[in-house]
């Protein structure tokens, strides 16, 4: 059924067979796009390529320009500078109804005076499809998003989850080359959000449509997207896969925005082969791996994710036997936060700072648990550290 649905979109079909597209022109090319409201530069020179079939997330705090960028792709705002190329054609100043792009709105924006069927058929009628074709396509969409039996309902007779499906079906009915989703799950409760995330991903894989989702929720972006663009103050701070974004953030701000992180500021001391030695005020001297991109200056910051920090009752000996390969910090447990699947310990270090360690609760009985005021050693390897510009 899905093949038939998207037969018109050759690029999407090709992608459907190849889950890792790499060759060919990007479907969407954003070139130096900028837009200001008054003196506020909402989007400030963004360039980005998105390939056909990608599930791309624009992630950022509110006011970072991600929604404005999305609205420029939909045609609700015109960029002041730059070009937006879709399939090689500049659409930067095309009106919304002239673009092969559809959007799923944050609060769904379902037409309250139309039934589910008429909401889904709205875009098909505008496209001038024959009556039979419209009926068939609506039926396909209803089946696709599992709304069978609700076709005659009005939007206010539906639950939040059902409304979300109608909005999705309505946006997909025209078989857009590009589907824009503006915080599509923000209005759902947590349980429903998780199952809907999985359904959206499954749908995107089956249809092969290129999805661009805007979200402020980093977990949502990490779960669903194959690539994430982090935005800050109207600029793209980093574009990377979820894993790279988490394990190799390009700046301290990104490290702190995506997930939890321990950050120690310090000064570069010396280089020993592929290791850097950095003297920090709060955690003593740390040995880190060399950063992938060279960092200048002597003021540096060392970032370590809490789950990379292990706890032990006494200093561990590294596998190679070289004590220096391991950073081990003496401290005392200051605070314990039990989260079910894991426990976060706050360790007050003898050096003065605090480090958070996230420990998976792999056993049901708490034989391994630590208690407050217990002396521990927090340790991590040089490769667990990310060296950033301070």
């Amino acid at each position, binding site marked *: 059924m899905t093949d038939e649905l998207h037969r018109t979109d050759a690029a999407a079909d090709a992608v459907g067979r190849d889950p890792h597209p790499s060759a060919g022109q990007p479907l969407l090319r954003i070139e130096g796009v900028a837009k200001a409201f008054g003196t506020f530069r909402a989007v400030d020179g963004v360039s980005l390529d998105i390939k056909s079939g990608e599930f791309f997330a624009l992630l950022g705090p509110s006011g970072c320009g991600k929604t404005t960028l999305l609205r420029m792709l939909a045609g609700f705002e015109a960029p002041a500078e730059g070009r937006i190329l879709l399939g090689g054609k500049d659409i930067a100043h095309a009106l919304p*109804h002239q673009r092969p792009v559809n959007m799923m709105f944050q609060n769904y924006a*379902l037409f309250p*005076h139309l039934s589910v069927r008429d909401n889904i058929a709205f875009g098909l009628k505008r496209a001038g499809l024959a009556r039979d074709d419209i009926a068939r396509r609506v039926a396909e969409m209803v089946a696709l998003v599992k709304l069978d039996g609700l076709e005659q309902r009005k939007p*206010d007779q539906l639950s939040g989850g059902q409304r979300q499906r109608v909005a999705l079906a309505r946006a997909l009915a025209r078989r857009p080359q590009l589907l824009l989703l503006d915080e599509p799950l923000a209005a759902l409760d947590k349980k429903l959000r998780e199952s809907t995330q999985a359904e959206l991903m499954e749908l995107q894989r089956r249809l092969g449509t290129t999805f661009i989702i805007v979200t402020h929720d980093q977990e949502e972006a990490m779960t669903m997207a194959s690539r994430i663009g982090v935005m800050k103050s109207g600029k793209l701070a980093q574009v990377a896969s979820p894993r790279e974004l988490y394990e190799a953030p390009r700046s301290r701000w990104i490290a702190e925005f995506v997930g939890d992180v321990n950050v120690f500021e310090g000064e570069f001391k010396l280089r020993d082969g592929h290791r850097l030695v950095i003297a920090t005020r709060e955690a003593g001297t740390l040995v880190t791996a060399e950063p992938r991109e060279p960092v200048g200056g002597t003021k540096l910051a060392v970032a370590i994710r809490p789950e990379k920090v292990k706890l032990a009752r006494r200093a561990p000996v590294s596998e190679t036997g070289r004590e220096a390969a391991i950073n081990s910090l003496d401290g005392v447990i200051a605070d314990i936060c039990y989260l079910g699947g894991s426990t976060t310990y706050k360790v007050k270090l003898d050096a003065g700072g605090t480090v958070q360690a996230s420990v998976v609760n792999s056993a049901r009985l708490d034989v391994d648990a630590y208690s407050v005021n217990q002396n521990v050693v927090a340790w991590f390897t040089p490769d667990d550290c990310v060296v950033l510009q301070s």
Partner: protein
Amino acid sequence: MSSRRIFARPARFAAIAPYLWMMLFFLVPFAFVLKISLSQTAIAQPPYDPVFDLTAGWDALKTAFAALSIDNFRLLVSDDIYVFAYLRSLTVAVTATALLLLIGYPIAYGMARLPKSWQAVAMVLVIVPFWTSFLIRIYAWINILQHDGLLNQILLALHLVSQPVVWLSTDSAMYIGIVYSYLPFMILPLYATLAKMEPALEEAAGDLGAPPWQVFWLVTFPLSLPGVGAGVLLCFIPIVGEFVIPDLLAGSNSLMIGQTLWLEFFTNKDWPVASAAAIVLLMVLLLPLLLYERLQKRQLEQGH
């Protein structure tokens, strides 16, 4: 005792207050007018017969009741003057309401799309004429519309006409007066519905391939229908019974029902016929009201 109980429970009083109000200021006067409409005119004080005298005893009251008749209503239906007056009132009201909707809708739409801070200014501008007495504003229009008035001066200065146009005592002058006076009553309910409409709905329609005019006809207009209904009723009903504007601005060759009523009451001193005319007018006006209410009820039932 019962009154003490009523005031001891403010909530219960609040619930019956509107009904008391209706009883005192609508139903009781309505009963009086209905009774007078069933009487005959008489050269007396009051100028109709029979008069109900509650002190004269049961038999006298029964005789008085027997003397009531629907002759006045028969007259209203048989005499062209009244039928034409009703028809003219309805024609004027329909035309003026249509004009009001055509003029008011774009204004309300424009207001609702203004930046928030400007909306308040626009609102004040719409309401500001109310700070001057209605009569004074109509007299001002007489001034503007007269032979050497402002309107003719402007038209002459722009060379749009070569001679002063006769405006006063024409239907055009009356329509100008009515549209001017009732415009806020059309704009405000329309503005209220349009301003609270979610802008994303229009964007969604555009996103789904509707060009701007389809966005308006398929989404904006249908969703503003409650406001259209309220505005149309707020204008149509008082315009049907309008007396002052046609009297001051229109010619005297054809009268609206409001003017006819006035003539019967004050010139002919025929209270019973005037009352009958008023009752029929009320019935004519109740019809669209009931229709509107049924429509709204059905919408509500569909919605939930």
